[in-house]
Each structure stands twice: as C-alpha cells, then as structure tokens.
C-alpha cells in the first residue's frame, strides 16, 4: 500500500517532467524538467530500498549517485546553454537545429 503511493507519486512526477522536457521551448525549463524526471527515479530507488521485496542499502547508494550525476549534468547543461546563448543570442530549444539532415 505505502509502496504504491510512492510509486504513484514518482510516476506523476516523471510524467510532468517528461511532458515539460518534450514541449517547453525555453532550455532552462527543459533542464529543470529533466531534473524532475531524475528525482522521480530517485523516489523509486529509495521506495524500493525501504519497502521492496529485498530491502537493502543499495537503493540509497544509487539514489546518492543519481543526485551527484544530476548535479554534474545540470552544470554541464547550463554551461552548454550559456555557450549556445552566446553564439545564437537565444535560449529557445527549437532554434538549436543546426545538426538537421
């Protein structure tokens, strides 16, 4: 019962993140949405670590890893965004299309 509640929360959070990542045109919002998706995953890790079939500390460790990687990703993403802004004077995702065809 408790596990399902956590999973439902994570699912809702993930879907919100996915929706935002795929539809928003501002790159900053897209990056924030990706963070949402990562955090939804972290909730799953921690929930399974506590209430799963074989509770163990592995889930906590994975969640910590994911947070660290997410921080790094946010840093790289923002750096790339600034470089993109300098060259194009815009932060709109749909204008970053030089690699088409």
């Amino acid at each position: 019962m408790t596990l399902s509640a956590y999973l439902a929360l994570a699912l809702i959070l993930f879907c919100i993140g996915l929706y935002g990542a795929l539809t928003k045109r501002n790159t900053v919002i897209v990056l924030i949405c990706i963070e949402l998706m990562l955090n939804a995953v972290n909730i799953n890790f921690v929930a399974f670590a506590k209430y799963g079939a074989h509770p163990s500390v592995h889930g906590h460790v994975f969640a910590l890893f994911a947070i660290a990687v997410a921080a790094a990703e946010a840093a790289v993403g923002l750096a790339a965004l600034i470089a993109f802004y300098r060259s194009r004077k815009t932060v709109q995702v749909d204008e970053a299309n030089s690699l088409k065809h």
Partner: protein
Amino acid sequence: MMNLAWVVPLFPLGSFILLLLFGRRWKQASAYVGIAATFLSLLLALAVLVDRLGGSTYEANWTWMTIGGVTLTVGISATALNVWMLVVVALVSWLVHVYSQGYMAGDERFSTFYAYLGLFTFAMLGLVLSPNLLQAYIFWELVGLGSFLLIGFYFYKEEAKAAAKKAFIMTRIGDVGFFIGMMLLFWQTHSFDYDDIFRAVGDGTLSPGMTTLAAILIFIGAIGKSGQFPLHTWLPDAMEGPTPVSALIHAATMVAAGVYLVAALFPLYEASHAAMMTVATIGGVTAIFAATIGLVQTDIKRVLAYSTVSQLGYMMLALGAGSYVAAIFHLTTHAFFKALLFLAAGSVIHAVRTQNIEEMGGLWRRLPWTAPLFLIGALSISGVPLFAGFFSKDEILAAAWTNGPRLLFWLAVAAALLTSFYMFRLFFLVFAGKARHHEDAHEAPASMVAPMLVLGVLSIASGYMQTPWFGSFLGEWLTDGAYRHEAAPGWIVVVATIVSFAGIFLAWLMYGAQKMPRDWLSARVPYVDELLRRHYYIDDIYRLTVVSLVSWISRLLAYVDRFLVEGLARLAAGIVGAAASAGSRGQNGQAQTYGAVTVAGLAILVVIFALTGGYWL
C-alpha cells in the same frame, strides 16, 4: 647460344619499359636506348643463328599452369625457320631504330615512339620463338597492339585515328578465325604444341576434315594479319603511321607474320589439299588484285602498301604451291627490299614534305644517296636479274608452275609485269623529269642514309643464298637437307626476265620518256580506271554492308541500353532516393521531436509487452 635465345626479345622489352619510365626525361637520347637494345638483340640473334647453322633444333618448355589434366607450357623453339625469322626481324628492327633517329627528330613524342617500337620488336621476336600456338597467339595479339599504337601515333589526325582502329578491328576479324582454329586443334589433340599437332596429323588422330577446317580457320588469321584479300583494306590505310613504322611493321615484319604462321604450321597445311589450294588461291588472287590497284595510286606510300599486299600474296601462293622455302626466301628478300623502298620513300617525304607523287619529280640530283638506293629496291622488287627479288620470285614462279594450277602461275606472271610497271612509274615520277619547286629539298642525315645503304646491299646480296647456280643453301638448311630444287622448265626464268623488263620499258615510255600519253589506257577504259582508283569499291562495299549492318545493330542495342537497362537502373536508384529523402525529412534537428518519437516508441513497446505478457519469442 641457342639456350639463350629467349633473351633476344627481352632487350627490346627492357627498352620499352625504360623509355616508358624515363623517356620524358631522356628526350632525344631515348633513341640510343632503343638502338642499343635492338643491337644487342641482333648480336644475340646472330650468335643463335651461327649456333643453329651447325647444330640441330633446340627446344625448351616450362610449365605455365596446370588446369585439371591439362598442362600449359611456355618455351622457346629454335627451329631453322624461327632462328631465321629472329635474325631478319632483329636486323630490320635495328636498322629502322637507327633510321628513326633522323626521321623522327624533333617530334614531341620521340621517346614514346621508341618505346612503342621496342614493344613491337619484343612481341615480334617473341612470336617467332613460340613453340606452341597459345604462346604464338599471345604474341600475335601483342604485335597487333604495337601496330595499332604506331599507326595511331599521330592520333591528333583524324585519318590516323581511323586507320589505327580499322587496322585493329580488321585484323581482329582474322584473329577470331585463328582463335577458333587453335581451339579446334586443342579440342582434338589436347595440346597447343606444334610438335604434338603435327604428330596428331601424322598418325590420323586428327581427321582430314578437321585438319582442313582448322588449317583454313588459322589461315583466316593469317589473311587478316598479312593483308590478304578480302581483309587487306587496313594495310593501305595503315600508311598514316610514321614511315619507319610502315617499313618495319607494314612491310618487313608484322605483315609477314601471317606467312610465318602458315610456314610454321606447314605440316598441318600439307596434310590437306583443300587448305593448300585455299592458301594458293587467296595468295594468287591477292597478288594480281593488289598490283592492279597499285597502278593508279598517287600517294607514294600507298603504292608501296599495295605492292606489299601483292608481294605477300606471292608468298602465300608459294606456300599454297607447297614451296615453303620459296615463301620464306621471298619473305626475307622482300623484308629487305621493301624496307629499303619504304625508308627511301621516307627520305623523299622528309625532303619534299608531301606524299603525292604528282607533286614530285626531278629529285635524282637532289637526293644523291636516296635515289640510287630506291632504284636498287625497285629493280629488286621488279625481279631484274642479279637482284635478290629476281631469285626469290623465280623460285615462286617455278613452284607455282610445278605444283599449282596453271591459272595461278599466269596470274603471278601478270602480277610480276604490273609490279615492275608500277614500281618504275613511281621511280620515274619521283626522281626523273623536271624538278617541281623543291629547291630546298636536300639529302637526309647520315643516320637515315646508313640503314638504307645496309638494306641496299642486302637487297642485292640476300638473293645469293638460294640460286640455281651456286646451290640452295637456304633451302637445304631450312629443311634439314631434304630440300630439292624445283625441276621447273628453264623458260620460266626467261619469261620472268622478259616480263620484268617489259614493265620497266612500259613505265619508261609513259613516265620516263613520255613518248606515250599517260592516259593512253585510262582514256580507253575509263570504267576500269575508276574501278582501280576506288580500290575495286571494296571499302565502299564494306561500308554499305558490314559497317552499316553492324552500326544498325549497335544503334538498336544502344536504344535497348538507354531505355531498358538504364531505365531499370534509374528506377532502382529512384526508389532508394525517395526512401532516403523521406527519412531525411524526419531528421529536422529538433531534439524534442526525437525525444517524443522515442517516448512514443517506448510506449508502443510497453503496450505490446503488457498485452502479450512479456517475452513472446
């Protein structure tokens, strides 16, 4: 030395390769490479000849490849005939190499010319050393390639290009016959070796019908190469090549390869009366046919070209009449005097810068060396007594009288009359009469005169190898002592002499002394004159029949190719192209679209998994 005979062709090959690599750098010095290489070949060939004079045939074979139960070999065979041809080819080739140094001087592609000459000489020397048909065929084609390259040497001239193609294609037609004949022999005897084939002919493994068929098919190859009727039309056109080439390839050596081939396969031909008759008839017809065309030509080289065709006909006639020795004897003397005539003609062209004999005249004083040398050549080919051509032509006439049909004998006599007439028509038109604005005409450099001098001496001396008076050295050697002089009636010599003097006298009347109007005959029978001027319309007939037929077929095939084959190819390319452009439209650079598509794909997969309950494979 005979075991080293295989080295003889390698010198010109080396010269060819060296000149191909460094010719552009060496420029005019390329000539020395070619001359040195052929001189070494000549020396070695002479050493082999000396060895063979006292010894017997040397033959060596090496395995080339084994396919199933069949072993193909390559090797050399130093029979008397082969060694003799080796010396003749090496000698004429060397002289032409020397001559070309003067004649081609200043040409932009001087080194290329020498490279091609080297390639040709290599192929020709290789051909005359071959112990089997396959090897002969390979060199036979290489010789054709050399000829093609050299006829087309001035490739920026349309005529030269067309002539080169014509020569290649027409000889190819003959080569198809040669190839089929060779394959027939291989099918029947399981060997390409001359010796095995002759053994099969001897012990009856080869049925008489098959012998005749194979012999005639191979003779078709010889017809193509030796410019015999009806595949002769390429040879006069081949005169578009440089004159030394005409002397070497289209007079002395390559065109004689057909005669050599029939001679090398002589036991095969001897076994079939029908094949012998074919050879004799084609030869006799060609001799008179080409001689009549030679009467009216106005291009100095074309007169000589038709004369070559006619003389090759003589050689074929001799072979067909069973006199192998007479044919090779005439081949040798002809190689010398016809090379001399061509080189002298080259010297004339060099001096007056035209090939039209109507525009020449009075050059006797201007060319003090060339003129007498040309006269020697003309006397020799006309069969004037004491010159080489007299002895060899007499030998052929004797053979034709004893073994051949009477008609062919009289054709040969008539051709001899015409020969001396057109040769002296040429001589009087070019050298006699009054000079026609060639004040600047002067004698060629020494490098051109010296080879002509050597050939001039040979045009007289080579006749004494085989005379009724001093014995038949050549015949006895070529046949290993089995030779017997044809017991022909003595009046043949008299007839031959009378005929040759009659031709000269007639030419002198018309063109020398001008006591007889030139159009005395052509005014009376204008049709004949026109017929001869148009070379019996042979070219026109070919153009209307074979050429137009082939071009219609090829035009049809071109349409099939353009619309059917190419259409299918275009369809396939179009389908792939359409698929690619549809795919590339999805590649729009929007990362979010890609993400959405990925998520949709994932969703579909999840639904499928959910419906089927997991792994269904």
